[in-house]
Each structure stands twice: as structure tokens, then as C-alpha cells.
């Protein structure tokens, strides 16, 4: 334990048997990297496009042009926040598969504020939009947390079920409640200009979300690794029984971990509304939940690793988008690559433990 000061409780428990731990040895990472590269080449070769060009597209789109880099940063925001929404409850041994619903709930809240509180002064309005997003996401995390706290219903189910509730709610809000009659797709009318996130760059537009994501990353790291509450969370994940004996309210810790996670996913939704779409639209959740969970698992729940891993996956996603546009390769190719990275990380760790 002393050599791993910042590992979440879940991982500590897994270290004692039957779990996963991200590989620590550079050699393992090298093997993972090479194997991933190999499988990418094989998949691309099977699909037919010019392999070297395809790989160059995936790897360099984010860095070749300014626009590519901005796209990558914009992707990083929801992916990293959704990853935190998954890893914080994971640290307490709880599985939050409801990031999607929490993101949408946050987006609904942010849209409502952006539409109806537009008379507030701008320095108040933008934080208010984000705050309501956080509160709504947190509420979406509270329901499964409360069902767990009060009735002992497994959170992995209820978090997912809340996703479907949110999906239908978004459809109601965007298609029936505040619809934009000129959009061909369930979409609300745009929020007030004053509620837009401040821009860091005007062309191509880059809102200040990436800065917020990095600040959140630092805050999560401090919370998880340097506060009593974070330590209690980790303790509950590591050994619920011992935590209880030492006077920690384990069930309340689970509840609050789900609410914090939900709040961060809600923040992601509010940032997407206030920074990117400027309205609520159906399908805005994209595949952020999947990417967030992948990020959280590849990072092994360690808050310090989430941002770099999220950046890596964002590069892959942006590259895959370009690949689909220029070479007509299906975008799911990159998904196979991501899945393989995850499997390689999980398995290599077990293999590494056998040797030692």
C-alpha cells in the first residue's frame, strides 16, 4: 500500500486477489502497444484501404492541423468527465453505467437555465448553467444511490435503467416541450447567447471546457488521494466490512460516490450544451459513455491517468472520423482498436502478476 499512495480502494482490494490492476512495468506497456499496433494493421488490411495511409490518418489528424487539435480537445472534455463519473464510484466499489443518462439530465437542466434565466448577468449565468447541469446529473445519480442505500438494489442495474428514462425525457423535451420547428431532428430552440461558454479561440471555435476538465481532474485527484472523504471512499471500496467496523458509513459513502459521479457526468452534459451545441438535441450523448468507461478501465481507476488516456482515445476517435471521411472505412475500426487496448491492459496485468 505505501508504494501506491493514490490507488483507489477498489484497486487495493483487487490487488489482494481476483481483480485487475493496470500494468506498471514499461515493458508490459510496450508489449500492449506493439500488439495493439499489430491488430490495427491486421484489421485495416482486412478491410482493404491503404494501410500506411490509414494509420497515418488515425495517428496524425489531431496534430497536423489546428482544427484537428481543437476537435481532439473538444472530445477530451466529455470523455474525461465521463471517465471520472465511472471511476469515482468504482473507487468505492460501485459500478456507474449510467453516465449517459446523467449527462443528458445535466444537458436538460443546462438548456432550461439557458432558455429561461437568460436575463441574469453573464458572469452569473454561465456558472448557473453549469451548476444546474451538475445538480441534475447528481440527481440522476442519486436515484440509483438511494435505491442502493435504502433497498439494497444493485446499482449496476438501476444506473442503466435511468439511462433509458433520460433518453425518453430528452425526446420529450426536444420534440414536444421546447421544440425547434425548423429542425428536422428532435432539437430544442437555441439557448440565449449570454449563456454560451466563453471561447479560448475564435477560429476554429474552442470553448473553455478543456480548462474546466483539467481543473476537475486536479480536484478529483486531490479529493480521492488527499482528503479524508476520499480516503473513506477508497476504504469502503477496499474493505467494506473493516470500514464499517472503523465507523465509516459505508452505505452513505456509496450514495455520495454515485452522486459525485453523476454530477460530473451532468457537468459534461452542461458543457456540451453551453459550449458545443447551444441547444439540447437528441443523440448528443454520442458514444461518450462507452469512451468514458473504456478510459476509466484503461486508466485502472487512477485519477492521474484519466486525462492522458482520455486524450489518447480522443486522438483515436478524431483520427477515425477523418478515416471515415477520406477513406470510407467504417468508424468502428477504431472501436476494435480501443477494445483491444483494454483487453491487452487487463490481461497483461494478470500475466505480469503471475511472473512475480
Amino acid at each position: 500500500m505505501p508504494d501506491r499512495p493514490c490507488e483507489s480502494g477498489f484497486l487495493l482490494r483487487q490487488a489482494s486477489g481476483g481483480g485487475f490492476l493496470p500494468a506498471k512495468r514499461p515493458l508490459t506497456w510496450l508489449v500492449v502497444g506493439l500488439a495493439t499496433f499489430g491488430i490495427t494493421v491486421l484489421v485495416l488490411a482486412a478491410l482493404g484501404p491503404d494501410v500506411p495511409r490509414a494509420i497515418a490518418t488515425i495517428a496524425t489528424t489531431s496534430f497536423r492541423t489546428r482544427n484537428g487539435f481543437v476537435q481532439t480537445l473538444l472530445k477530451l472534455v466529455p470523455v474525461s468527465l465521463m471517465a471520472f463519473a465511472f471511476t469515482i464510484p468504482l473507487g468505492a466499489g460501485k459500478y456507474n453505467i449510467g453516465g449517459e443518462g446523467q449527462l443528458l439530465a445535466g444537458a436538460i437542466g443546462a438548456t432550461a437555465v439557458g432558455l429561461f434565466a437568460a436575463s441574469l448577468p453573464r458572469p452569473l449565468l454561465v456558472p448557473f448553467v453549469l451548476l444546474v447541469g451538475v445538480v441534475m446529473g447528481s440527481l440522476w445519480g442519486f436515484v440509483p444511490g438511494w435505491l442502493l442505500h435504502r433497498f439494497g438494489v444493485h446499482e449496476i442495474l438501476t444506473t442503466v435503467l435511468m439511462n433509458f428514462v433520460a433518453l425518453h425525457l430528452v425526446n420529450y423535451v426536444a420534440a414536444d416541450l421546447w421544440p425547434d420547428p425548423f429542425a428536422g431532428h428532435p432539437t430544442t430552440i437555441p439557448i440565449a447567447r449570454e449563456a454560451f461558454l466563453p471561447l479560448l479561440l475564435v477560429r476554429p471555435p474552442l470553448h473553455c471546457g478543456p480548462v474546466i476538465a483539467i481543473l476537475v481532474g486536479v480536484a478529483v485527484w486531490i479529493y480521492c488521494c488527499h482528503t479524508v472523504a476520499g480516503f473513506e471512499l477508497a476504504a469502503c471500496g477496499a474493505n467494506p466490512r473493516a470500514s464499517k467496523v472503523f465507523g465509516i458509513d459505508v452505505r452513505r459513502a456509496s450514495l455520495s460516490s454515485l452522486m459525485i459521479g453523476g454530477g460530473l457526468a451532468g457537468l459534461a452534459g452542461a458543457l456540451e450544451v453551453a459550449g458545443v451545441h447551444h441547444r439540447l438535441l437528441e443523440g448528443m450523448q454520442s458514444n461518450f459513455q462507452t469512451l468514458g468507461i473504456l478510459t476509466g478501465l484503461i486508466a485502472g481507476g487512477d485519477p492521474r491517468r484519466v486525462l492522458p488516456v482520455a486524450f489518447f482515445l480522443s486522438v483515436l476517435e478524431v483520427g477515425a472520423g477523418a478515416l471515415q471521411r477520406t477513406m470510407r472505412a467504417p468508424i468502428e475500426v477504431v472501436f476494435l482498436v480501443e477494445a483491444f487496448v483494454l483487453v491487452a491492459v487487463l490481461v497483461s496485468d494478470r500475466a505480469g502478476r503471475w511472473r512475480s
Partner: protein
Amino acid sequence: MTGSFSFAGFAQLMLFSMVPFVLAAQGTMLGGRAGVFNVAQEGIMLASASLGFLVAFKTGSVALGFGSAMVLGGLSGLVLSLGSTILGMNQFVIGITLTLAGLGLSTLMPKLAIGVTLTPPLAPTLTNNPIPFLGKMPVLGEVLFRQNVLVTFTVLVSIALWYVLFRTSAGLILRATGENPMAVDALGLDVFRIRHIAVMIGGMLIGLAGAYLPLAYTGTFTEGMVKGRGWLSIALAFFGGFEPGRIFWGGLFFAAVEVLAYRVQIGGSWVPYQFILMLPYLATMGVMALSSRRSRIPGFLGKNYDRERRSTSSQGQG
């Protein structure tokens, strides 16, 4: 509710819609009884719906479609049980990974095999097989005996599972594996092998449930067509307390809620239809909350068994 409501029609649709819930929940139950908690139903069902549809579309044979879906489901189950036994990995982590993989595969496979088409490609679907004589009965015949083969299969499988679990020694061993693998190990039986078999057969049932959606409902595969039925079936397994009989009756209830929501949506009501569509998910959460105290779950559910660990109290921490 519209005027065209008929009890027989409702009951027939209910039995028809029960199949994916009950099959997937029995699959979950089977793995759970051996102590392996499969949470990949949604992904496995999506992938096998996609594969089952593609095979049926290419070969023109519904049976081959269902067969391939079963193989895929069985393989996913095997990945779960091998990963959690031999590699000793966390069952939830493998399940979540499998869910994501199934999600990705389900959209990738049609793109590779068919490509993007303007009109949805149609595969043959299951036809209703009226049972001779019984199918000619007035109301009861319509409800019970003029259904497709898989409805009958689901009923038979549920009965068979109940019999095997509670009336044979193999079932006793399986239940013991989920309650106390140390005892099973002490008897000289191979805990891992029991888990492999149970989870693999469970996965096959889940695959079958997935393929039922394109091959009985629509004739085509659409993205995300499982619509949470995989997750609902996990809830159903809990609701049924991991007992085949109670899962079957619970499945009828789940199907009734689904059909009811559909009927109300078509018939129109003063509540916006989106709220009606939330009903199955909300009802499930409510039912889970109310039944959580009463329903029993296997003691070792979701926990890995490690022979090397000596003390029984430290068993199953992972």
C-alpha cells in the same frame, strides 16, 4: 385504451414478448447459480441479434440464424467464465468489457457484411406454428397454442431448468457452487469446470434471446434494438430470486408492462407518450426495490473462487 382491445390479443402478444426476457433471465440465473454474475446481457444480445440476422439474411434460414447467435452467446459466456476463473479477473469488469464489445460488433458486422442500404434488408422470420387440435380451440388456442416455436421452447426450458436445478443431483451441485464453492471443491468436484459449463449454456440462452428480436419481431437489425431488455433481464433474474419458475412468471409481468406501454402509446393518452415508454424501466426499478428484501440470491454471486486462499472468510473478496 382503444376500442379494439381484446384480452386474447393482449395475452398472445404478452406471451410473444416474454421470450427474450425469460430466456435471457434464465441464462443469467444459470450463470448466477454457479456464482458467476454475467452483466453483459445487453452487449451479448445486441451482437447475437446482429449476427443472427445476418446469417438468416445470407442463408435464408431462420434456424441457422438462431444457431449462430447461440454459438456467439456461448462463446461470450466462455470468455466471461475463463477470464474470471483462470485469469481471476473481476467479473463486472469483464462483463462491462463484453457489453462494450457487443455494442461495437453489432454495428460493425452489418456494415462489413451488407454495407449501408437505403431500404432495410429483410431476413425471414419465425412463423407461428399452430399445434394440431389444441390450436383450434377458441380463445385459449389463440393465446397458447398458435405461437412460434420459441414461445413453446421458452416454456419447456423453464420447466426443464426447474427440474434440473431442484430435482437432480447435478442441479444440487450447481446450486452449491453458487452458495459455497469451498464445499464443492472439498467434494473433489471441479468448481471452474462447473462454472464454465453453466455460464456457457447461460450465454447460449442469452444469445437466443438476442436473435429473437430481429428474427421474430422485425425481420431486420436496427442499431440498439435490444433497448435495455438485456439489463431488464438481469433485474428479472433478481426479481425471480434466481428460481426458474418465478423468473418465468416475472417474465410474463415484464412482458405485460412492455405490451401495455406499447398499447397506450398507440392508443393515445393525456400523458405524453415518452413518459409511457419510461414505464418498463420505472416499473422495474420499483419492483426491484420492493422485492429486494424478499428475494434470495446465491451467496457467492459475482465472487471469484480462489483455491489457493486458505481462510474461508477471505474467500470471494474479489
